[in-house]
């Protein structure tokens, strides 16, 4: 019975998120009217987490370079470490790391902000003064995340490759010229949907989808918050948890779509 209730609650939540996403798309014509708020959300989503993305992705690149470099060294292939780091960062680690950071920082803040508005009757106030909540509150936040996630991912990819290069040179004995030449060459491969390097656009496409997923889930949980501070806490926790689960599941399907033979 509890399992059935859990399933019903999950289906209800998913239905609300899908409905909210469709409503957001329908509000895209309101973008010119909301441009000031969208700008402030872009600033919030970007500026406040950029240093975290730079630091985490730099260290991720170092770890990746060290782990793969040591294995490659066993086969005398450590000069290939630049390829491994660059491709892994562009395809997976850059978008994924950025998405996890965004879910934990911006996503939790979105859920808490909207949740607080819900429990303090601010959302009801918007409703009674005939303000479209989706256009006013949700669409700018979702759009800002969709736009900012790939920008942050470019920084994450770059810092990861730089971090990997630092380890390759200092601990694996791979020269920086060789490392960066092989790293950049590995990202030149065209193919698929667009006439730009596939690993780059694939990663950026992923990060746009992750941005949309995180913001929709976080906004939906915030809007559904009930019951004071406890409700806001629950909404925030659920938003971060569900965002991370959704990112992992969506990641598999996008990877399958882009790289299936």
């Amino acid at each position, binding site marked *: 019975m509890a399992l059935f209730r859990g399933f019903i609650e999950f289906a209800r939540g998913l239905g609300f998120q899908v409905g909210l996403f469709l409503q957001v798309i329908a509000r895209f014509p309101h973008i010119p009217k909301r441009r000031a708020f969208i700008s402030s959300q872009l600033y919030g989503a970007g500026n406040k987490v950029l240093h975290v993305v730079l630091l985490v992705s730099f260290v991720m690149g170092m770890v990746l370079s060290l782990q793969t470099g040591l294995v490659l060294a066993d086969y005398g292939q450590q000069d290939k470490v630049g390829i491994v780091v660059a491709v892994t960062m562009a395809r997976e680690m850059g978008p994924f790391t950025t998405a996890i950071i965004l879910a934990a920082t911006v996503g939790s803040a979105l859920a808490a902000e909207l949740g607080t508005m819900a429990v303090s009757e601010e959302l009801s106030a918007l*409703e009674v003064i*005939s303000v479209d909540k989706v256009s006013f509150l949700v669409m700018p936040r979702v759009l800002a995340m969709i736009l900012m996630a790939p920008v942050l991912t470019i920084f994450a990819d770059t810092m990861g490759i730089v971090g990997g290069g630092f380890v390759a040179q200092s601990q694996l004995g791979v020269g920086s010229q060789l490392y960066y030449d092989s790293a950049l060459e590995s990202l030149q491969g065209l193919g698929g949907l667009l006439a730009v390097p596939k690993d780059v656009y694939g990663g950026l496409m992923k990060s746009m989808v992750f941005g949309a997923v995180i913001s929709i889930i976080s906004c939906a949980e915030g809007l559904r918050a009930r019951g004071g501070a406890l409700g806001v806490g629950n909404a925030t926790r659920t938003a971060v948890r569900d965002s991370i689960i959704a990112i992992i599941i969506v990641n598999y399907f996008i990877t399958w779509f882009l790289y299936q033979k």
Partner: protein
Amino acid sequence: MNVCKAFGSKVVLSGLTLDVKRGETLVLMGPSGTGKSVTLRHVIGLLRQDSGDVWVEGHDMSLIKPLELFELRKRMGYLFQEGALINWMSVADNVALPLMENSSLSRSEMEDRVREKLKLVHLDGVWDEMPGEISGGMKKRVGLARALITEPELILYDEPNAGLDPEISQSINELIREVADTLKITSMVITHMVSCVRTVADRVVLLEGGKVIVDAPPQEFLNHEHPRLRRFLGKDPD
């Protein structure tokens, strides 16, 4: 008419029948949990009844379409208990919000209108302050200015004097009366204060168990011998 509403197993309205005439100020009194706020939320369409009919300005609220409700609400104002100001917008932007969203007024026309309404609620010096920087009473008055900004035909006040000092409370009462008289607005006011009844009411009802048990003009209401009303008002009202 005959409105019923329950939240889970808790029945809040159990056959409430109530009408408000155009231009009238109706005061709702009653112990906490008897459905006063729930009644107002049905009038503005924030809640739907389980059974019975709610009619507002010729609209059946259980059948009203979202767009019609959107338009109807532009003709209504609602003062929430805590003001319900948007916490990341300044006082002036909060008051101007209904106009920014739903009118074609120029920026300067909006500013004039905001200044006029803030003056009406005795907050002429307050403009750029954020809701977190002003007192509870000021928040309530800003909420009232926002409710009045579109010059509505019907205003719903949910405990406009709760938590206010007697002086501010009386000024809010006088403001509600003044607004009702000068703008010929229909008003529904929830209060626990007899001073509010004396100042603003054209008619007063006492709710108990989700039903009206006393319905009378203010003076008659205050002298009414109904035992529940006598117990509710106590020996020393206010």
